[in-house]
C-alpha cells in the first residue's frame, strides 16, 4: 500500500524529554529531545540498545507516562492523560492468571462500557482472529508462551484500537512461533478498512524490525535520542532471504554498531589531559568478556560482530555491551564491524589465572573511574560505603544508572582483586 508521508499524523511527540528520580539526588535522564510521528496505515518500529528508552517512548505515546518536558498530540490536539484509541500488547503478556482466556478479553470490553451483545460478538471475533477457538475456557497458565501472546493480541484487538502498541511482543515466545505471529499480525493490519490503522512496535531484533516496519526508528542510549529513521520500502510480503532484505539488515547493523562503537583509539586518550573526564562503564559481565576473548582466540583473533552473535546465540545487545567492555580494557579493537583481539588481549587470554588478574588490574587502573574509587577508598581508610560511591557516580556520570555502574565496578574490581565488597553492610574494603 502506498504511504503518504504528508498525511496528518495520528500521534506526535514534540520535544519530549523524560527524567526519572532515582532517589540519589541527581535525576536520571532517559530521553532527550524526542520528536516522532505515527502516521496512518504504517508499521513503525523502535530499536536500540538497552536503556535507550524505547519502552518509555511507547508509554509516553500511550499516555501511561507523563513526559518531563514537551507534549504529545493526538490528531493535532494536545493529549492529556491516557489515549483511549490505543491498546498495548505486553512483553510479559500481562494476562490475569485467574481469568479464563475469554474472561481476559471480555472484562476489557466490560470496562469499556459496551452492552452484552456487542461484548459477546467482539470477544468471539477477537478470539477467532488470533486462532484461539476452543481455548476460551482455558486459563493462561495452561497455555504456552505463544498461545498466551495470542490472548494478549486478542485482548488488544478486541477494543478495536486505532493504533496497536507492541512492547517486544515476541521476546518471550519461541522463535518458530514468533515467526508465525509476526505474519498474522501483519495480515490483520493489512486490512485497510479495519483497525488497527497503525502499529508501533518496540523490538531488539533487527530482523524482526526489517520484516515488519515501514519506518525504523534507531535510538541511541544514555540518554535516549533518535539516531536516525530508516525508511523501509521493501514490498510486502517480505522475503527474509532476498538480497534486498539482507542488505537492509546489514545496513541496520552498521548504523547500530557505529553508534555504539565509535572508532576511537582508547590508547590515544591521555589521562593527564582528560583528568576530569570519567568514562561510562558498559554493564558487561566478566564471564561474558572472558568468553568473548576465548572465542576470538579460537577463531584466530578476529571475527565479524554478527558472527559472534551467530556463534554464541547471545542477543545482539548483550554481545555489543561485552565488546564495548573488552574494548574499554584494550583487549579488542573494533575496526568497523570486525572485532579483533589486540596483543594485550591475546596475552591476557592465553595467560594463567595469576597473569590474567595482573593484566586486568593494570587495565582497570588505566580507567579514571577506578582511580577515583581507589582514591576514595584510601581517603576513607579502606572502608567505603556503597551509598557514598553511588552518590559520587551519580554526580560524575549523570546520564548513567548509578546502581548499575556500581555493580559493574564491583564485579570488575573484584575480579582484578582491586578491592573486596561485602554486601551485608554494603562497604568496599581493600583486598
Amino acid at each position, binding site marked *: 500500500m502506498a504511504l503518504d508521508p504528508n498525511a496528518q499524523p495520528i500521534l506526535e511527540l514534540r520535544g519530549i524529554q523524560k527524567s526519572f528520580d532515582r532517589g540519589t539526588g541527581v535525576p536520571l535522564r532517559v530521553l532527550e529531545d524526542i520528536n516522532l510521528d505515527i502516521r496512518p496505515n504504517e508499521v513503525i518500529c523502535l530499536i536500540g540498545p538497552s536503556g535507550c528508552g524505547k519502552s518509555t517512548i511507547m508509554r509516553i505515546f500511550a499516555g501511561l507516562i507523563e513526559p518531563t518536558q514537551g507534549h504529545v498530540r493526538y490528531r493535532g490536539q494536545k493529549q492529556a492523560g*491516557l489515549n483511549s484509541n490505543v491498546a498495548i500488547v505486553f512483553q510479559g503478556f500481562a494476562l*490475569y*492468571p485467574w481469568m479464563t482466556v475469554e474472561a481476559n478479553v471480555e*472484562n476489557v470490553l466490560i470496562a469499556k462500557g459496551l452492552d452484552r451483545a456487542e461484548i459477546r460478538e467482539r470477544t468471539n471475533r477477537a478470539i477467532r482472529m488470533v486462532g484461539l477457538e476452543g481455548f476460551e475456557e482455558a*486459563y493462561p497458565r495452561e497455555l504456552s508462551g505463544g498461545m498466551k501472546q495470542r490472548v494478549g493480541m486478542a485482548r488488544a484487538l478486541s477494543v478495536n484500537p486505532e493504533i496497536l502498541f507492541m512492547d517486544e511482543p515476541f521476546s518471550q515466545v519461541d522463535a518458530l512461533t514468533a515467526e508465525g505471529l509476526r505474519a498474522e499480525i501483519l495480515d490483520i493490519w493489512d486490512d485497510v478498512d479495519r483497525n488497527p490503522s497503525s502499529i508501533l512496535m518496540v523490538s531488539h531484533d533487527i530482523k524482526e524490525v526489517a520484516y515488519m516496519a515501514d519506518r525504523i526508528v534507531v535510538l541511541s542510549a544514555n540518554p535516549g535520542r533518535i539516531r536516525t529513521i530508516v525508511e523501509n520500502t521493501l514490498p510486502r510480503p517480505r522475503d527474509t532471504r532476498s538480497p534486498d532484505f539482507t542488505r537492509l539488515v546489514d545496513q541496520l547493523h552498521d548504523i547500530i554498531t557505529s553508534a555504539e562503537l565509535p572508532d576511537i583509539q582508547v590508547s590515544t586518550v591521555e589521562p593527564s589531559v582528560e583528568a576530569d573526564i570519567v568514562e561510562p562503564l558498559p554493564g558487561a559481565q566478566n564471564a561474558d568478556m572472558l568468553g568473548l576473548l576465548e572465542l576470538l582466540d579460537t577463531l584466530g583473533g578476529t571475527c565479524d560482530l554478527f558472527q559472534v552473535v551467530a556463534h554464541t546465540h547471545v542477543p545482539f545487545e548483550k554481545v555489543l555491551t561485552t565488546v564495548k567492555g573488552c574494548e574499554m580494557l584494550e583487549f579488542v579493537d573494533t575496526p568497523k564491524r570486525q572485532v579483533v583481539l589486540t596483543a594485550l588481549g591475546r596475552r591476557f587470554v592465553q595467560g594463567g589465572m595469576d597473569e590474567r588478574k595482573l593484566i586486568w588490574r593494570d587495565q582497570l587502573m588505566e580507567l579514571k573511574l577506578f582511580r577515583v574509587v581507589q582514591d576514595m577508598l584510601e581517603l576513607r581508610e579502606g572502608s567505603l560505603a556503597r551509598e557514598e560511591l553511588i552518590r559520587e557516580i551519580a554526580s560524575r556520570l549523570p546520564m548513567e544508572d548509578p546502581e548499575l555502574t556500581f555493580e559493574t565496578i564491583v564485579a570488575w574490581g573484584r575480579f582484578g582483586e582491586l578491592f573486596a565488597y561485602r554486601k551485608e553492610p554494603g562497604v568496599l574494603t581493600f583486598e
Partner: protein
Amino acid sequence: MLNRIIDTVWGQANALFYPFRRRRWVDLVVILTGCALLFGLVQLGQQWTGAKRPVVEIDLSPASLPLYTFFSMMRGLAAYVISLGFTLVYAYWAAKDSRAEKLLVPLLDILQSIPVLGFMPGLVLALVAVFPRSNLGLELAAVLMIFTGQAWNMTFSFYHSLKSVPQDLQEAATVYGFTWWERLKWVELPYGTSGLVWNSMMSMAGGWFFLMITEAFKLGDQDFRLPGLGSYMSVAVEKGDTTAMVSAIVAMVCMIVFLDQVLWRPVVVWAQRFRVEETAQGEQPRSWLLRLLRRSRLVRWLEVRRAHRRHLGLAKARTAPRPHGKRRANTIQRAVANVALLCLLAVVVWAAVSLVRYLSAIPARQWSWLTRAGGLTLVRVLASTALGTLWAVPAGLAIGLSPRLSRILQPVVQVAASFPAPMLFPVVIATLARFHVGLNYGCVLLMLLGTQWYILFNVIAGSMAIPGDLKEAATSFRLSWWQRFKALYLPATFPYLVTGWVTAAGGAWNASIVAEYYSFHGETLKTFGLGATVSQAAYERNLTLLAAGVLLMSAIVVVFNRLVWKPTYQLAHTRYSLTK
C-alpha cells in the same frame, strides 16, 4: 415403529430426569444445612439481644455442649467477618493514599505488637456500659477481642499484595480503562487472595486463644462470662469435673476440624485459581466438600441464576458508553481522602493526649518497678521461645523431611496449633503443683504451651521447601547428619524459623498476661512480672496502672521488634533466602 417411538420418548424423558435422580441427596444435605444454619442464627440472635443476665448459668451436661460450641464458633466467625472488612478497607486505604500510608503502616505495626489482652477489661467495661440492659455489649466485646487477635496480619498481607501487583498487570488495567472498582475486583483482590486465605487461616487459629479467655472473663466479683466453650471449660475446672473438661477439649477439637473441612479446605481449593506462579503445583490440595457442592444441582442453579442476573443488569446499566465525568470523580475522591485522613489524625492525636494525661499520674518510682517487671517477663518470653525452638526444630525437621510423617502429622499439628492453650492451663498447673514448681518458672511452660506450635509449624514448612537438588547434593557428598544440619537444614529453614520466632514471641507476651496471674480453684496464683501487673491492675480496676503496664509492654515489644527481630528477619531474607 411404535416400539421405536416409545423407546426414543422414554429414553429422552429418562435422560432428562437422570441428573435429578443422581446425587439428589447432595441437594437434600445442602437444604438441611441451610435450615440448620438459619435455626442456629435465630438462637444466636435471641442470645445476643436477650435481657442481660447478672450471672451466667453454665450447664455442664454434655448435651448442652453442641450449642455452646456453636455459640463460640459464631463469635469466631463474626470476628473474622469484621476482620476481613477491616482488612479490605484499611489495606486499600494505606496502599492507595500515599499521605495516609505514612501514618497507617506504622500504626498497624504498633497495633500488631500490642498485647491486646491488656485492653480486655477496659473494653468489656466500656461496652457493657453502652448496652446496660442486653447481652449485646458483652457479645460485642468478645467479638472485638477476637478481632484484635485476627486482623493485623491479614491487613499486612493484603497491603503487601496491593503494593506488589506486577507492573504490567497494573498497566494493562490502566490502558484498558478499568475503573477503581473493576481494578479492585479483577486485579487487586484476586492477586491478594492467596495471601489473604493463608493469613485468614492463621488468624482464625489465633483467635480461639482470645475467645477462650473472653468467654470466661470475670472481673472481681462481677461476672462477665458468656455461654460458650470457654466458660464451660472454666466452670468444669472450678468444679473439678474431669469428664466435662475432657468433653470440652474434644468439642474444641471437633470444631477446629469441622471448620477446617467445611470452611478452609474448600476455600483453599477455590483460591488455587488465584495462584500467580505459572508452574503447575506438585500436589493439588483437594476438598471433598467443594467437589460435592460443585455436583449439587441446587448450587449450580443458583450460580447460573447469579450469572444470568449479572448479565441482564449489565445490559441495562451499560447501554450507553461510560460518561466522561472523570475529573469530577477525581475531585470527590480527593475530598473523601482528605476528610478520612483528618479523622485519622484526630483519633491518633486524641489517643496520644489522653494516654499522656493518664500516665502523668504515675510516680517515677513506680515506673522503675514496672520496668523491672517488664525485664523479667521479657526473660520469660525469650526462655519460652528458646525452649520451643529446642524441641520444635528437630521435630519439625523430622516431620518436614519425611513425606510419610508430614502427611500423617501435619493435620495433627495444624489442629494442635489452632487449639487454644488456655484450655490446658488448669491441667498443667495441677501437674506443676504436684511437682512443687512455682508459677515463677511454671509460667514459662504455660507460655510455651501456646507458642511452640508457631515454631514447629514454620520449621515444617521450611524443611518441606528445601529444594531436592540441595538434599541430593548433601547426600552425594556424604555429609554426616550433624554437617547436614549445620550446612543445609538450619540455614535453609532459618527464614521460616525467624517468622516462627516473631509470631511465637508475640503470642508469649499475650500469654504472659494470663499465665503470670491465674485463678485456680478459687485462689489466685501469681508471680512478679509485667503480665501479672497488668492482670492485677485490671482485677483491681486500677486503670492508670493498667494503661501504664500495657503501654510499657507495647513499647518493649515494639523496641524489641525493631532492634532484634527486624535485623534478624532481614538477614534471613538476604542471606538465607532460597527463592532469590
